[in-house]
């Protein structure tokens, strides 16, 4: 089923959805949001693309195998905990880094940003692995 309307809409929607997923991911740093919900929105963008066009082009747009995405995501999420262990803290006790950027203000970064990005990648990877594999059947 190829629908010109859907395809045209998808081209612009995908970009918005991907941006929104990253917004959700970063918002999770201090407010409701985070890697899981962001990842779901991101995966929805690719799934929409696969429905409007075809699975092959969605895979091309992804540019990386979903398995690899899961692995990288898990490595980042698990790695965030290991950083705490190396600093002689309990596993996943998050470490904070504060700094002042002139003209921008104070920013604070935690190891859980790394964790969240990991979760983001895992969620996109798992969802797409399932969706793309099933739609190829």
């Amino acid at each position: 089923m190829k629908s010109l309307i859907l395809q045209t809409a998808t081209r612009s929607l995908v970009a918005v959805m991907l941006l929104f997923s990253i917004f959700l991911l970063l918002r999770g740093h201090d407010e409701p949001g985070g890697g899981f919900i962001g990842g779901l929105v991101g995966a929805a963008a690719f799934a929409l693309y696969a429905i409007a066009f075809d699975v092959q082009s969605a895979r091309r747009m992804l540019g990386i195998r979903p398995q690899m995405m899961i692995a990288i995501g898990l490595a980042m999420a698990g790695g965030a905990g290991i950083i705490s262990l190396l600093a002689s803290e309990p596993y996943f006790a998050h470490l904070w880094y504060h700094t002042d950027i002139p003209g921008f203000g104070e920013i604070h970064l935690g190891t859980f940003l790394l964790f969240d990005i990991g979760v983001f990648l895992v969620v996109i990877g798992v969802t797409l692995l399932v969706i793309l594999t099933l739609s190829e059947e």
Partner: protein
Amino acid sequence: MSHDLLVALPIVIPLVTGVIALLFYEQRETQRIISAIGAAALLIAGIALLLEVRAEGILVSDMGGWPAPFGIPFVADLLSAVLVMMTGLIAFTVALYSLATMDPRRESFGFYPLFHILLMGIAGSFLTGDMFNLFVWFEVMLIASFVLIALGGERAQLEGAIKYVALNLISSAILLAAIGLLYGVAGTLNMADLGMKLQDVDEPWLVTTIGMLFLVSFGIKAAIFPMFFWLPASYHTPPIAVTALVAALLSKVGVYALIRAFTLIFTQETGYTHQILLVVAGLTMVTGVLGAVAQYEVRKLLSFHIISQIGYMLVGLAILSPLALAGSIFYIVHNMVTKTNLFLISGAAYRLQGTYELKQLGSLYRYHPYISALFFVSAMALAGMPPFSGFFAKLTLVRGSLEVEHYIIVAVALFTSVLTLFSMTKIWTEGYWTPSEAEENDELPPGVNSWPGWNSQMLAMFVPIIILATLSVGMGIFAQPVISLLIETAEQLLEPSLYIEAVIGDES
């Protein structure tokens, strides 16, 4: 090393190993090396943890730095540490063994990442100090083991896997409901906090009812009577390395959860709850071994024996005396070693003769005396003959039961023992002693009984078997240090205030 690191390592190592193996998804050879190294590291971490716990007492690490009872603590007492070390041992031996026996197709569909994720789930279950977190680790285990059992997609495998998953999902649903009720009653899910709050609760019957729900749920996972039927229906279908791994570890996690719950949390009406446990233990022993008597397929036969031995592991918990509980834990340890080894040996026999059917196996003793010797050691250990490990495990258990005058369970245990000996003898005579039918009629396919020589595959196959057989003998001959360690473990379990103090008192 810091305690936080020691407690976290048994979970972190399999995670890291699994992730690295996943990163090398396309390269089988690399995955194999990573898997073996990761499993060895897990064993070392387990040994280090046990040594530290024995020297320092219970170790606690609050995940994320959130203090108990609000956060999730990971707690390593002696029981957890012993079981984590055993997990490392089984992981290491089975990882080596699977290098020789796993087929390339399964390897390229993610066998090694799954193997290590399963280990992470098991180590997590042994170490967590939070009921809900235990549920989460169970799910990690269930998902990983489901894929491992179904991996390869053979017809029998799928059938087994569906039974396995369906019943385990029911168990998880019951567990979740029980956890919800428990939270409603106590307002906490931290095990130490539960142990403290439920000691002087107004309505002990309510807690006991919830305890029974836990018994059913953990009981399905541990395969106790009458909820064991998923086990023999599914364990014989996957490749032998997977069977050995799940047989050694999964049902033991259920037993561990029972021991933890019924020594720490549900001790309000022991006269009632532990009497039920005792009856169930006896019935589990007898039905398991009777099921085994009827089997002529090695893997099915051994699967039924797992059930029977789960019964022994519950006796000590039901009796709740230090000696009997030590006997039960000895039994868990001994069973992990010998049962794994029997599966590994039957896999080796399959490699040499191409069958698991006792009627078609034959004359193994004549052609491969060394394998036969290894089998003999493990089989006699399982049946409980001196001087092997099983004898002392049973002796401790029986003495513990006699001390508190539970004569019936002693009789049942000894009767079961005789039947176990009988079915081990059956494997020996049918598979190792008498010639197979094909052999009698001179119809053997060429090359069936020839020894392929000591190539690297044979080494990877037999080194684990030899390690485990040596341990079976070693734990028998040097039983004294093992028993004294396990009596210490049992005494720690029977003194819940130690656990509670380590987790909660830590913060004040």
